[in-house]
């Protein structure tokens, strides 16, 4: 960043959260764990204009209290920004790999 040779990318993505009970404990753990596997700075918002919070912080993600039916917006900045956003959007699309019971 300071020597001008690092390739810098920014990426954004949005996805409707359809998890039965919103962005709750287990999904939040999965989301922040996945976010931490990327070096980019990754942020999460409920609208295109923010406010933005650190997607790698479980405390902040939980405090966000995103309910089912909210649209999650991701924005990332860094070398693997595009992959990071794609991976997080995909995790939400897969409903956090949870199958819920009921019926």
């Amino acid at each position, binding site marked *: 960043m300071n020597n001008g040779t690092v390739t810098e990318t920014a990426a954004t993505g949005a996805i409707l959260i*359809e998890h039965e009970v919103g962005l709750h*404990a287990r999904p939040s*753990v999965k989301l922040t764990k996945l976010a931490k596997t990327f070096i980019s700075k990754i942020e999460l918002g409920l609208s295109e204009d923010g406010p933005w919070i650190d997607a790698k912080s479980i405390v902040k993600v939980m405090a966000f209290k995103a309910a089912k039916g909210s649209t999650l917006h991701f924005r990332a900045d860094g070398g693997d920004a595009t992959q990071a956003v794609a991976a997080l959007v995909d995790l939400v699309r897969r409903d956090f790999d949870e*199958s819920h019971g009921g019926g």
Partner: protein
Amino acid sequence: MSRLFVLGDSAANADIRPAGDPDQEAASLRRAVGEAIRQLEEVSATVAADAQDILEFQVAMLGDDALTEGAFAAIAGGERADAAWRTALDAQVEDYANAGDEYFRARAADLEDLRDRVSDILSGGQQQSVPAGTVLVARDLPPSRFLGIDWQAGSAIALAGGSPTSHVALLARARGVPMVVGLGADVMRVPSGQEAMIDGERGTLVVAPDEATRAAARSRATEIDQRRAIAAKFQNAPATLPSGEAVAIMINTAGPDELSLLDPAICDGIGLVRSEFLFHGATLPDEETQYQAYCRILDWAGRRPVTIRTLDAGGDKPVRGLTIDDEVNPFLGTRGIRLSLLKPEVFRVQLRALCRAAVRGNLKIMLPMVATPRDLAHGRAHLGAVVSDLAARKVPSAAPQLGIMVEVPAAAIAIDRFDADFYSIGSNDLTQYVMAAARDIASLADYADAADPAVLSLIARTVEHGKRTGREVSLCGDAASEPAIVPHLLRAGLRSLSVSASAVGLVKAAIAGALDR
């Protein structure tokens, strides 16, 4: 009967020493948080997956600097580690406690759990140890505390606060520990050591029960044991009336997974497969997925009949991307066959999978929520189209019998208008529609009586029509699983019941008259 144990609030004995050097205080907090993580990971290694998820969440929270930064800032400003930590966590707890959503409100207990664990470590205090097999009274019970207690037979939990959606409620349910919540702060004043019991039916804690109450509890327990023994005796035998007349006992199921634990010999077939189990995923199930699932069910049943109900979404069973949201009264809305006819592309995928699976065993198709002969005619037309298409393509398939659920009063009242291959009475919905009392409203539970004469007369009417025209009539609602209601159903003429698998033994005993005193 177990003794009461009141668990006091943790770390109320905050130490009053003056703050040490900020660096030392910060180091103490860091050590305490590290120790708390270690303890949680240690407990986590010994518990089941559901508990691990909860502890993993707690460990992730503790490992996040965002949780501790407020405390470290206060310490830098001269605050004691313990006070700084509690103040920081109290703010978090407060934030969750004020959340609009019940799930998030319940997370306050997780934060309190973390607050107290770290706080106890900081003060060097020991957690009060809870004797095994007690009726535990507490303000709330943190999940990590729950996991550290020996919940042997006779144990129970009574909470002043708490929530049925808390992590600890989840754990208690999974482990069969009786629990009541929301008893109010006064319950904390009950002295430890007294005998106590929980009345699960009323949701109350009974302290120092008198002899009559104890005797009632004992006899209830004995009765449950006796019934279990009777059920075990009847479970594997065919069901017969005292006259010797046979009654067919089928089971209801929500999919192949739960069947794998059951012996098919306990029943005469499956009277209801709730195909909604296929529709809980993120996307709608394709034909192959459905076909495989239906085949597994048929393979389990062998030559026994298997009645699969087409998707009964809507009402209290939304399916995302399919059902219509925000209907004012979903029970009177676009549900069951109404939805299928509205989404023929989804309906036909299911019918194709069913017709293909039909070569594998004795499969029947049943349409839910049929209210007019037109519903049945349209359903039959879709089935006919699917059958001829599969035949034209030479795909191995068969045309199954097509029956209807009799659950809308219009169908029961004018049953002779419905030219179905068989009828299955859905007593849950039939009752709620006849009594005009939604079955998801707890305070109206008294109206949800399938033995009401109005409901029974519609059942009898359907049975009568079936006898006259040579069509099979069965009943697959919850009423069939209730031994007390079974005699009414038999008197209405029913000789085929589909019940929950866990009720098979008792229902067979009730049919044989073995439960009568």
